[in-house]
């Protein structure tokens, strides 16, 4: 049987093309978008001799970071130049592209999985840090910079050193109303914004086994906020059921062969991790961030912490800076914080299940006067499904803006930005200074908390509305 191996070790081993201090790994699917690829394609064209794309058939491109979500027409000249360049590059190299306006368009990390392009045991690379999302399928998935994008385009490989391994064991069953986002904010608060730096993380435990693929993707998505190289979850029946009949999933005999193979993708019982972290989720409550990195989070029922609460001098300084930027006073109840905008969307929480959870709270209710809520589906496929289920109408009736697919207000690169020092409850993944607009203040929340907050006008959980 050989040496016991972790899931990470098994998936890694099957991609080694050329072993070394850094192993040359094969890339099964390369996801590309308009914001980090132009310079890579230009690099291929400028090389002597000119280089091509080795495997256009293993490459998929979408437009997501820059596109508007209120119109199917791109008018901004800079965006036009960016998407125009991507379209040209894809045409030149024969790469499949879902442009703005296409019925499969959406955020790269939502589109890949929902088409069945990401499968257990695969290696997935994208010029975007939240590529960790795809680890939810038991895939080895990681974000890279533009130079690495160019390397993958040219060679379909990447040289990397193996990471240390970390197991995150979620212990117990989370109470009702506690979502995947809360599990991860609680983990981040515990281990810190870079508590998993240099590690490949595998999420385990009953809470994971019981969770949907959407929840698993939320969890793996946020791995990068812990600084992890990758986040992974072993594939199981939930994974197979999600993949079955998706456009790019195997069919017939291939399906049976694939499932038989995927069954082997489990960490062996006697394999060891370099580090193990236990998080008891049985008494967890919804979490929300108060600061300017995702680990600066507390239960929503609690108050803004005091910098002196932090034993570490570095953390204290960071807390002081964060509180000043966020314009918050220690001791203020999180529930008393008023918001201007609520953003539901992003590759963290823009999938159908996220929209369902928010719609359940909004149904029959109105969002508070003076609050603006944007609901941005992660893809046009999600949008269609939400409309079929009547969710679009729920958002509309509640007074929210029901928009088109894209990264939207997650990153402040497209027209969806906060104005000035507006305060936002956001289901996205980064509450960094200026992330949603130059002076914007972001509180990261789950979809249910986002919806309740929109109705209450202040940070709130659904039970507060009864």
């Amino acid at each position, binding site marked *: 049987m050989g040496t016991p191996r972790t899931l990470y070790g098994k998936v890694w081993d099957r991609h080694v*093309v*050329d072993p070394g*201090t*850094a192993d*040359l790994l*094969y890339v099964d*699917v390369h996801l590309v978008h308009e*914001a*980090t690829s132009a*310079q890579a394609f*230009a690099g291929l064209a400028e090389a002597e001799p000119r*280089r091509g794309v*080795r495997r*256009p*058939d*293993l*490459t*998929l491109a979408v437009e997501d970071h*820059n596109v508007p979500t209120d119109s199917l027409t791109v008018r901004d000249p*800079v*965006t036009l*130049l*960016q998407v125009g*360049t991507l379209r040209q590059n894809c045409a030149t190299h024969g*790469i*499949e592209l879902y442009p703005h306006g296409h019925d499969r368009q959406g955020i790269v990390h939502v589109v890949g999985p929902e088409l*069945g*392009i990401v*499968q257990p045991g695969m290696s997935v690379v994208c010029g975007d*840090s939240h590529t960790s999302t795809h680890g939810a399928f038991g895939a080895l998935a990681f*974000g*890279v*910079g*533009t*130079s*690495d994008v160019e*390397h993958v385009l*040219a*060679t379909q*490989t990447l*040289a990397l050193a193996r990471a240390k391994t970390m197991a995150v064991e979620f212990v117990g069953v989370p109470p009702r109303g506690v979502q995947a986002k809360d599990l991860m904010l609680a983990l981040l608060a515990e281990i810190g*914004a*870079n508590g998993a*730096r*240099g590690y490949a993380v595998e999420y385990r435990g009953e809470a994971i086994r019981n969770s949907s693929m959407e929840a698993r993707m939320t969890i793996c998505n946020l791995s990068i906020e812990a600084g992890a190289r990758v986040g992974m979850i072993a594939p199981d029946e939930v994974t197979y059921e999600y993949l079955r009949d998706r456009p*790019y999933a195997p069919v017939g005999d291939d399906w049976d*062969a*694939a499932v038989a193979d995927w069954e082997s993708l489990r960490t062996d019982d006697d394999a060891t991790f370099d580090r193990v972290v236990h998080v008891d989720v049985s008494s967890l409550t919804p979490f929300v961030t108060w600061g300017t*990195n995702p680990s600066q989070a507390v239960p929503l029922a609690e108050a803004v912490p005091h910098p002196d609460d932090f034993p570490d001098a*570095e953390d204290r*300084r*960071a807390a002081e800076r964060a509180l000043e930027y966020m314009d918050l006073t220690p001791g203020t109840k999180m529930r008393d914080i008023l918001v201007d905008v609520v953003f539901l969307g992003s590759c963290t929480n823009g999938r159908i299940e996220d929209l369902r959870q928010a719609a359940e709270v909004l149904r029959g209710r109105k969002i508070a006067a003076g609050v603006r809520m944007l609901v941005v589906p992660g893809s046009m496929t999600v949008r269609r499904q939400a409309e079929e289920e009547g969710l679009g109408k729920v958002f509309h009736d509640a007074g929210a803006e029901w928009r088109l697919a894209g990264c939207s207000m997650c*990153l*402040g690169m497209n027209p969806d930005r906060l104005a000035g020092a507006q305060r936002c409850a956001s289901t996205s993944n*980064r509450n*960094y*200074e*200026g*992330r949603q607009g*130059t002076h914007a203040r972001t509180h990261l929340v789950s979809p249910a908390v986002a919806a309740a907050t929109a109705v209450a006008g202040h940070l709130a959980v659904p039970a507060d509305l009864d």
Partner: protein
Amino acid sequence: MRPISGHTGTGIPLRRSGVDTDQIIPSGFCRSLRKTGYQDALFATWRVDPDFVLNDPERADASVLVTGPDFGTGSSREHAVWALRDWGIGAVIAPSFGDIFWRNALRNGLLAVRVPEQATTALLDLSEAEPWTPITVDLVGQQVRASDVVADFEIDADARQRLLLGRDEIELTLGKDDLIKAYERGRPRWLPRLGQDLVRADSHD
């Protein structure tokens, strides 16, 4: 890329931890299609403050950024590295870096070196007190030196070799085409292949 054996310059002390790439270059500045011309975008929001260290006229020619742990975390944008380089920075010294940033830096010949926290703090103190003191990052000897502060650093042997020789990694990998082809022959046949729609569309016209 040209070979690099090290970098010497005066310091820019940035006494902060967890500086993410959204701070190094806000996303609004990442919409250019070029790899150069990002100098004005570096720390754009922080630079509005006249007291920000990059605005110190005494540091106008400084080229070694010294900072706290977890520099360059967050977004994978390589623009962060391009902005530092375009500003004229040749080396960044910190106790730790975001993984993707670190890879991006070395790809562009920006020496991002991990030096223990104690030594980084000593360098911050030194550079604040004596802005004129040069700091050397010696890639050959794997050492950082400034006045009486000396610290060794570790670096991945392959990455170091590539920098010293100025080798193009894509070129190196293209040389392994036989190995890549051999690997490709063994891939399971059910793995997804994109672009079938393109092929179909073509065959219809």
